[in-house]
């Protein structure tokens, strides 16, 4: 087929052929064929090369046919992008068109761009054919297409070309600067983006004159008629500012910064939403601007202290800007119609609030209004800003603000509530009234959203701890309130429990205030130990908390050891940690309270320990196995497996993969032990040969599953499994004694892999492996039927202790036949195919894996390849419901089909491959236990 196509392709292209169809049509067809040849995965390299070469030649032959040339150029670019080996030939062919007519030059550039995009090497290829003069002439072309394409190429060259440069940086600057005044807005935008990229790329090394040029041009473009050009220009001004700042190196650039600040402020009043968003974004990034400028941007009235009309001027371009231009910028920002603008304004306010306390103060009253905003994004952003201000200690809340703020604790969105609490945790509350307000707000929150108790307790605890005096006062009031004499008190009441948390926090961990707080509080709190410790688990360990509560409540506490531990266990308050990484705080992951994630990790650590113990036990049984104490050994293995299964029930995610692996491993050892016992037994009558074979198959399957169904195994574990496989193979040999080539190959393969691993890492080959390797190489040397001394070898084997490092993924699958059980069989007509609906779930299967569905009825086996493209979801978990046909329906009144999911083991191909029988080429490992599908013959029912 391929050859045929190729021949036809050449025929179409050859100028001499006298075909009946007209020439342009033939050329177009030839392109279509070329496309087919190139796109087909199975085309050979020579075919591709010859196709490309023929097309390159045709470019010269059919130079007059513009439509063909354009198509061919475009195609060649794509082809070279797909197969980088063709790139050099294509590039040299395309190169000549760059000097040609505009249209072809544009297409040639498109081809170049395709090659440049395709691979990391692509760009250097392209750079090799373009020289400075050519690029400049292209840039000056009168065709827009050419200009825009060369511009794109140049812009992308800034990011991509490392080492291979088409134009020097200074020259690029000139080209971009020149094109920023192009007639077409899209070109102007691209040129500005180029300048921005270039500024970023050069960074501090930039020539200050060039930066000044860029800046001046950007300022001109701020007045552009096109809104996208304006917004790009704002970005350019912003990046120039950064360079000015870096370039100033300590010298005073405040005048310049202020000028830019005012310029950006005036852009924030632009009519275009996009420009405003960019402007506010840029404003947020301005650093070291004077406080008076900042304050002016918060007030619509022109502030007097700069005498109203203070002019910031720059001699060079005679830029005169009145300071009043900045007036009220942020007020306009938060009043904006579009929530995107409001959100970014809030963000910028927060970033600028770091520099000035007064600014932060005034900005806060603006921000408080934004807490009422109807867009959730804006509310969240506002809370984040407040949190940022709190971490920099620039947050001074007043009573009038508090109402607004606490209103958010009743917000409809859980995200907003969580974010609000997060800010509360760091707030400094000026007086007792506000403190009480906050506590009441949190209690109301607790009453309406009891599911958030954990986080609310956590926040209550910190609020109490940060304001010890207030919480001590509260504790005393509480003590009066909960006198047992009243009789009606229930600790279940959210209010009481919340107050208790606040009360106990006041003396924590300091001992100074303890005496003030009635002991009864602590004894009550002790009854809530479970809930409180759950909320505070990343602050204090449960035992330490209990000790702390018991000590102050005057209760006798039994465990003295944990008392001494207490001081060490109590962590420092999280403020410091959070202050350092506060900038990274993102709203999205505050959704899930932080500590629940930590809990999971904690759990897996616990789990690791218990698994380690189990594995240790397994390792220790080997001497028993060797001593053939079957009964004891099997009992040990059974308990180990049971324990692992129990653990697996509560595990999820990575932990479950980990347990899965451990279970499989124990299973293998158990099987090996069983086998070992059988062959060591002096009389083999207890087990038939068939049973042994089944055992061997089982071992094989389990080992394969260990090897292929887990990703990211540590090399030490892989090593261990390989040794086990080696051992299993030798075991098998020793019993069945068939020493075929394939077994030899397998042994060699395992050994070479072992040797490779040991050469890479620090793992030593065991004596057993060394001996086997020696034996195998001897056997290969003199291919005589010299037998290997199995017994000696087997005696050498010793089970290593292995340690697991979690972090691997287990490839799992689940297969279910839908609407089918033994009561409710599928109907079929014998001899005709029948469709079965399966629901398949796959975990951690990558796109490179080849998966099969095996369906077995009696002797007939049918494989169906599963196309992962049909599955929805991501690599972690994908699933789909598909209908698959089963062809070989037997002539019976009913039958049971066994279906199972298999994964093709990539490295063990060549063994089972039989022709004419579809199915996997290599060995397979089962992903899930077989599932039965029931059928009933429609005629015989």
């Amino acid at each position, binding site marked *: 087929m391929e050859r045929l196509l190729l021949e036809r392709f050449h025929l179409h292209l050859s100028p001499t052929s006298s075909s009946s169809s007209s020439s342009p049509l033939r050329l177009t067809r030839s392109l279509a064929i070329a496309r087919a040849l190139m796109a087909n995965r199975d085309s050979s390299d020579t075919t591709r090369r010859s196709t490309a070469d023929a097309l390159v030649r045709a470019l010269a032959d059919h130079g007059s046919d513009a439509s063909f040339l354009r198509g061919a150029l475009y195609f060649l670019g794509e082809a070279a992008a797909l197969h980088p080996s063709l790139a050099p030939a294509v590039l040299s062919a395309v190169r000549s068109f760059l000097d040609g007519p505009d249209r072809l030059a544009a297409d040639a550039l498109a081809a170049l761009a395709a090659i440049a995009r395709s691979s990391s090497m692509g760009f250097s290829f392209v750079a090799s054919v373009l020289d400075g003069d050519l690029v400049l002439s292209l840039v000056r072309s*009168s065709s827009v297409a050419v200009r825009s394409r060369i511009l794109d190429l140049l812009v992308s060259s800034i990011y991509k070309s490392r080492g291979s440069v088409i134009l020097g940086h200074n020259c690029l600057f000139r080209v971009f600067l020149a094109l920023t005044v192009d007639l077409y807005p899209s070109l102007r935008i691209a040129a500005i983006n180029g300048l921005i990229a270039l500024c970023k790329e050069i960074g501090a090394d930039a020539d200050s004159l060039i930066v000044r040029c860029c800046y001046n041009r950007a300022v001109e473009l701020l007045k552009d008629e096109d809104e996208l050009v304006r917004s790009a220009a704002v970005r350019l001004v912003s990046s120039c500012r950064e360079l000015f700042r870096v370039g100033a190196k300590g010298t005073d650039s405040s005048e310049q910064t202020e000028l830019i600040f005012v310029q950006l402020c005036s852009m924030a009043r632009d009519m275009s939403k996009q420009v405003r968003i960019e402007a506010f974004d840029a404003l947020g990034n301005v650093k070291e601007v004077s406080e008076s400028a900042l304050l002016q941007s918060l007030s619509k009235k022109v502030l007097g202290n700069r005498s109203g009309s203070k002019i910031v001027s720059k001699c060079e371009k005679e830029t005169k800007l009145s300071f009043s231009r900045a007036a009220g910028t942020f007020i*306009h920002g938060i009043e904006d119609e579009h929530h995107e603008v409001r959100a970014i304004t809030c963000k910028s306010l927060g970033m600028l609030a770091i520099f000035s306390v007064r600014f932060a103060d005034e900005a806060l009253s603006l921000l408080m209004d934004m807490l009422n905003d109807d867009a959730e994004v804006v509310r969240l952003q506002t809370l984040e800003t407040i949190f940022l201000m709190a971490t920099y200690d620039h947050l001074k809340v007043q009573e009038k603000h508090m109402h607004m703020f606490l209103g958010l604790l009743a917000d409809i969105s859980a995200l907003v509530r969580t974010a609000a609490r997060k800010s509360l945790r760091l707030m400094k509350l000026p007086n007792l009234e506000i403190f009480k307000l906050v506590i009441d707000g949190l209690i109301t929150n607790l009453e309406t959203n009891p599911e958030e108790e954990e986080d609310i307790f956590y926040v209550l605890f910190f609020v109490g701890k940060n304001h010890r005096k207030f919480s001590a006062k509260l504790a005393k009031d509480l003590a009066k309130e909960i006198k047992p004499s009243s009789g009606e008190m229930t600790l279940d009441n959210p209010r009481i429990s919340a107050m208790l948390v606040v009360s106990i926090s006041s003396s924590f961990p300091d001992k100074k205030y303890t005496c003030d707080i009635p002991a009864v509080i602590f004894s009550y709190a002790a009854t809530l130990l479970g809930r409180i410790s759950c909320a505070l688990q990343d602050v204090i360990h449960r035992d330490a908390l209990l000790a702390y509560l018991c000590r102050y409540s005057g209760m006798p506490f039994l465990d003295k050891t944990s008392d001494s531990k207490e001081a060490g266990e109590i962590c420092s308050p999280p403020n410091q940690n959070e202050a350092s990484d506060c900038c990274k705080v993102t709203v999205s992951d505050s959704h899930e309270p932080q500590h629940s994630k930590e809990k999971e990790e904690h759990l897996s650590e616990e789990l690791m320990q218990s698994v380690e113990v189990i594995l240790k036990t397994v390792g220790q049984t080997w001497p028993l196995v060797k001593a053939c104490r079957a009964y004891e050994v099997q009992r040990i293995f059974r308990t180990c497996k049971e324990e692992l299964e129990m653990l697996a029930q509560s595990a999820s995610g990575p932990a479950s993969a980990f347990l899965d692996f451990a279970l499989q491993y124990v299973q293998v050892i158990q099987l090996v032990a069983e086998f070992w016992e059988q062959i060591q037994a002096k009389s083999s009558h207890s087990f038939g040969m068939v049973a042994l074979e089944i055992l061997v198959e089982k071992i094989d399957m389990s080992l394969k599953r260990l090897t292929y169904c887990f990703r990211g195994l540590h090399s030490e574990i892989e090593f261990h499994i390989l040794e086990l496989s080696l051992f299993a193979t030798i075991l098998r040999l020793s019993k069945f004694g068939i020493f075929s080539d394939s077994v030899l190959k397998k042994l060699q393969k395992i050994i070479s892999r072992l040797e490779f691993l040991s050469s890479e890492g620090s793992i030593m080959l065991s004596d057993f492996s060394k001996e086997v390797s020696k034996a195998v190489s001897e056997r290969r040397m003199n291919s005589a039927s010299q037998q290997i001394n199995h017994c000696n070898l087997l005696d050498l084997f010793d089970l290593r202790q292995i340690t697991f490092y979690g972090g691997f993924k287990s490839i799992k699958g689940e297969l279910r036949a839908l609407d089918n059980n033994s009561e409710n069989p599928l109907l079929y007509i014998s001899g005709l195919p029948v469709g079965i609906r399966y629901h398949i779930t796959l975990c951690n299967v990558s796109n490179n894996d080849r998966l099969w569905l095996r369906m077995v009825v009696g002797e007939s086996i049918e494989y169906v390849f599963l196309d992962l493209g049909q599955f929805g979801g991501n690599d972690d978990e994908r699933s789909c419901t598909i209908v698959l046909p089963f062809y070989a329906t037997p002539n019976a009144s009913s039958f049971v089909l066994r279906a199972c999911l298999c994964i093709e083991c990539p490295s063990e191909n060549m063994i089972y491959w039989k022709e004419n029988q579809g199915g996997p080429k290599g060995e397979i490992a089962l992903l899930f236990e077989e599932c039965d599908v029931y059928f009933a013959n429609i005629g015989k029912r």
Partner: protein
Amino acid sequence: MAIECLVLGAGQEVGKSCVVVSIGGKKIMFDCGMHMGYLDSRRYPDFSLISETGDFDSSLTCVVITHFHLDHVGALPYFTEVCGYHGPIYMTYPTKALAPIMLEDYRKVMVERRGEEEQFSYDHIMECMRKVIPLDLKQTVQVDKDLQIRAYYAGHVLGAAMIYAKVGGSTMVYTGDYNMTPDRHLGAAQIDRLRLDLLITESTYATTIRDSKYAREREFLKAVHKCVAGGGKVLIPTFALGRAQELCILLDDYWERMNLNVPIYFSAGLTIQANMYYKMLIGWTSQKIKDNYTKHNPFDFKHVCSFERSLINAPGPCVLFATPGMISGGFSLEVFKHWAPSEKNLITLPGYCVAGTIGHKLMSGKPTRIDLDADTHIDVRCQIHQLSFSPHTDAKGIMDLIDFLFPQHVILVHGEKPKMASLTERIQSELGIPCYYPANNETVLIPTSQNVKVDATGQFMRSCHNVNLNSIQDKPCISNFSTNNCEVSGTKIDASKMVITSCCNANLHSTQDKHCISNASISNCEVSELAGDENLTEGILVMEKSKTAKVVSKDELLQMLGAEKHVVQFARCFPVRLSNREQFLPHAANHTTLQLLCKKLSSHVKCKYIESFSDHLQLDSLRIRICSNEDCPFRTNQNKYCSSSVIYFCCSWSMHDENLASKCLEIVNNLDSTIQDSNLAQEEAPNEHLQ
């Protein structure tokens, strides 16, 4: 050409907006409003100033109405039906829908309640509305061959628009009323960056700078909440359209959030009818409403129900919206009478009340007793809250708009005179834009830059993109352009080399330098060249009889004229005496002299490319060679010197290198400083010679 702007109304006052603009021979009337303060002839604009004969159809090209407020549309039925204007009228869709409601409501109040003489009838209104051509936002309407108008979103009220008008090269914007900050139900004004000759803007708040709207909202809500929490009744006298919806959305939202159950009432049918229009015209409301209305139309008020008279004295708190806004009569007055005596109740007043209304009385100080007429007195004990919501932009907004559009001239209307004066001052000093605020019936003449349309050939356009780099490669001096008239093949052509400022021209000539490609650093002077603002393209303007003027590129001209290329070349051959000429070997003498000269020239002239050949030197078009021809036609001062120590330099150059040439010639003359010849200093006319 000039724009003539006749202010018929709202000049130095608020009311009866009407501006007639003549632009490029077209006359457009913007707005046609009535003054609510007068009942006599001053109520309407003085239409006779447009046309004394009353033939408005021929004198006006079109009428454009910005929005449905009566001070902008009130006089329209009168103008069309009574005065007899039959030309096109433009307004936006919502304005077309809402204006008749407003007009009819007004007519009813005037005729039925006050018993005034009817100025126009219901039929008049309907007839007038039938002539209206609706406009959509950003839709360019070609009124006639020359006049284009386009509407931009103005905020203010539903359907309010700013109008852009263009005739030929003259452009202007009439803003009508607008708001630069969005409110609860309308967005902020939105306009493109246009190049304008004239901007006519309202200036209601010419000196006021308003605070953040959130503070205002907070205050209002706090007052209302406090009142209803105390069991009081809140009366919100308001205009049916606009503010009522805004306040209602605000309250409805707040009620939702605070979980309040106090009823909110709407008194009149007009408001409910208006709400219906608002619900239909979602596209003209603010972004937030547009985003959300599929989920919940904010004009479907959850807590709002209609009011019945019997509810006035019902116990318990409530909030009531009642018309008219300034408690000048009607239902709001009736309710006021009942509610004012209780100190638990609250009356909110709009930002602006006309003198004479009860609203105005309440605003100015806090009266305890209001005498309605001789027999009726109302004790006022209730609380009073003044609203500061306004749909007009504040001074900062006006400045922002002017700054954004940056027109050549600004005219202020719709404001109070002293405030307008101070804003005018600000605009002129801060933005440097000439600004006027004419009184009613005054005319302002605005000069506009005159643009002449010329055609351009394709080749010229291409040359705009593609600077011919070789021609301007590092010239020592770029020649000035000069004008000359020449007679070629019988056709009189004014061929002037002209400089066209073009924005599309890539200023690339410096990138052509060889050293640049090798990425050397850029020197100071080159950078300033790079940053240069203007890019020059050379072309030739050709004006032929009865044809549009056309710009062609240089190469095309000759082809067009069918003429051959003529080059003006100057030449001169003059002697220079060299004292040490005898030292040179005879055959090498000329060459060495040239070498010497070359060195000298390159040290004096700022030119990088002096090419030295065996028999001549070349600097751009200047060519210097040593002449041995005794009969050289360009030779001067032939007989003065003996030939041994004197050599003749024959120089030729073309016109555009004249400056360079004169400089170089001087250097050549002074090649040997020992020569003392006064005759040489004498200026000589260059020989003109056609090649």
